[in-house]
């Protein structure tokens, strides 16, 4: 996963990666404004997927090396959805297979709701944010990490503790995270996100309800959908989120299926990259 590119997306300078040939696929990370997640979350998957697909991975607005939203009132999840849509246009992608992790899974479902014409298929990965309102696990994890002053150690700690095996941190990922988490842009995104959190949260809860109702009424009925979950996800537990997501999607989406990976925390594509890629490849190539 090398040679990041930058594109202007409606005034937002946006970092992305692009490689390979074949069916277009866009990988969307989790997190939100000022979270450490970004396109390089997929660094253990990207090159292998590029062997079969024309793969893109993008830093969402206000994450990684992509500009922050222009106004504090834009710190709501819908801004990231619109940015994704505008990004697809900016790079000339008319339609793509979308793979979204966590809040990125929620984002691609909203993209299918708001702009169905750009979506070829959805792969929803451990997206607790589609199902529940808050994940105390991450608040607790941040508290546990609070005493670590070295940013590199701190982010390694948070990633390791989101995993099952503790072996999901790569130097490439950590180097990349270090390249932005100490920048003023990142600090502004974090501070604004904290300030705007109540607004963002109320908005998310309302739209989450709307999204679930839309799915239950057949909103996704014409789209191929793969739901994947990690059996040992602590932030989006299988019982609380995974099984309910299955019962939300499978009855309402004829061309859908669910795959459950074992011995994995939230970042299943980092913990079992080969198995994850094979599952996504089988899904898309079977369409």
């Amino acid at each position, binding site marked *: 996963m090398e040679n990041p590119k930058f594109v202007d997306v409606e005034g937002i300078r946006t970092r992305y990666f692009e490689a390979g040939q074949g069916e277009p696929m866009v990988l969307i990370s989790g997190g939100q404004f000022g979270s450490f997640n970004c396109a390089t979350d997929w660094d253990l998957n990207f090159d292998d997927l590029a062997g079969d697909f024309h793969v893109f991975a993008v830093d969402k607005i206000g994450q990684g090396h992509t500009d922050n939203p222009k106004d504090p009132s834009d710190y709501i999840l819908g801004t990231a959805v619109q940015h994704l849509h505008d990004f697809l246009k900016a790079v000339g992608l008319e339609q793509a297979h979308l793979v979204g992790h966590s809040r990125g899974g929620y984002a691609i479902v909203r993209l299918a709701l708001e702009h169905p014409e750009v979506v070829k298929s959805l792969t929803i990965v451990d997206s607790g944010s589609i199902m529940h309102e808050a994940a105390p696990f991450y608040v607790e994890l941040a508290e546990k990490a609070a005493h670590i002053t070295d940013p590199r150690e701190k982010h390694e700690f948070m990633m390791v503790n989101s995993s099952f095996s503790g072996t999901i941190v790569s130097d490439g990922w950590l180097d990349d995270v270090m390249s932005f988490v100490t920048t003023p842009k990142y600090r502004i995104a974090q501070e604004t996100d904290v300030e705007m959190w109540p607004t963002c949260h109320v908005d998310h809860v309302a739209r989450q309800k709307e999204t679930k109702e839309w799915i239950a009424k057949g909103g996704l009925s014409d789209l191929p959908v793969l739901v994947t979950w990690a*059996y040992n996800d602590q932030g989006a537990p299988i019982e609380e989120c995974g*099984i309910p997501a*299955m019962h939300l999607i*499978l*009855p309402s*989406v*004829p*061309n*859908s*299926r*669910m*795959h*459950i*990976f*074992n*011995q994995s925390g939230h970042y299943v594509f980092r913990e079992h990259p*080969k*198995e994850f890629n*094979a*599952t996504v*490849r*089988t899904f898309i*190539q*079977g369409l």
Partner: protein
Amino acid sequence: MEDAKFIDVNGTRTRYFEAGQGEPLLLIHGGQFGMYNSARDWDRNWEDFTKDFHVYALDKVGQGHSDNPARADDYLLGTATQHVYDFMQAVGLEKAHVAGHSRGGYLVARLALEHPEVVKSLIMIDSGSLMWSTPEFYEDLNKRAEAYTDVREKHRFILEGSSFAGTIATDEWLDDVTTYVDAPKNREAMATMAEMWPTLDIDHQKNRDDTHDWIRAGGLKDMPTLVIWAYDDQGAPIIKNGIPCMHLILPNVPNSQMHILNQSGHYVFREHPQEFNAVIRTFIHGL
């Protein structure tokens, strides 16, 4: 699925099919003594599998065109497990990937318990009998099937009644069923089964509980295992059987995973042969 072969398995004349080259894959159908299930249950998967695997499918003892158990006291599920083991010896199959459906899924788990050295990987498909019995659905289905006097139409009704879409009974399957289901051998198996049912059921419950204890104690910890379930299985419902099966297998089998196919009843490999085969292929090729 052509050119049935016959082989003597410790005195039990056994019908089987064999084709293709590659990793050995043994398919074990469901049902028990005197039931209509046979190797032919896999007719929609067979040709495609032969492109990648050295595939075997046999009629279990007392089903299809295989002989009945020698004595009434042998009408126990363990007899079918031993027969599969002896079959592998008879055809010179030292070790195979074994895929079992329904009671065949319970069988392959027992095969791994009793003869782990012959199992390369384990694939269990909608195996209600590995979990809890839910006889109501089949009792009701069989009662409704009594309205049919024509054997072919009766079995078409039973198979389609177990499906989601009602499109899984092929002529090839129905033709084969009519060659044995009303023959004296099968009538005898049904009569003996009815007589021995209480003994079989008590024995099964005990062995099933022992199997669960063995799995929880790590009996399958070195075995790559794939659990497959159909979301709309009525005889082995996902909530009552599939999810508990996930919670039995995944925590106790490190190299395991679960795949849930949508819009399918009990015979998921007949209802979605292409997707089913792709999932199996991805699993085995990923080992």
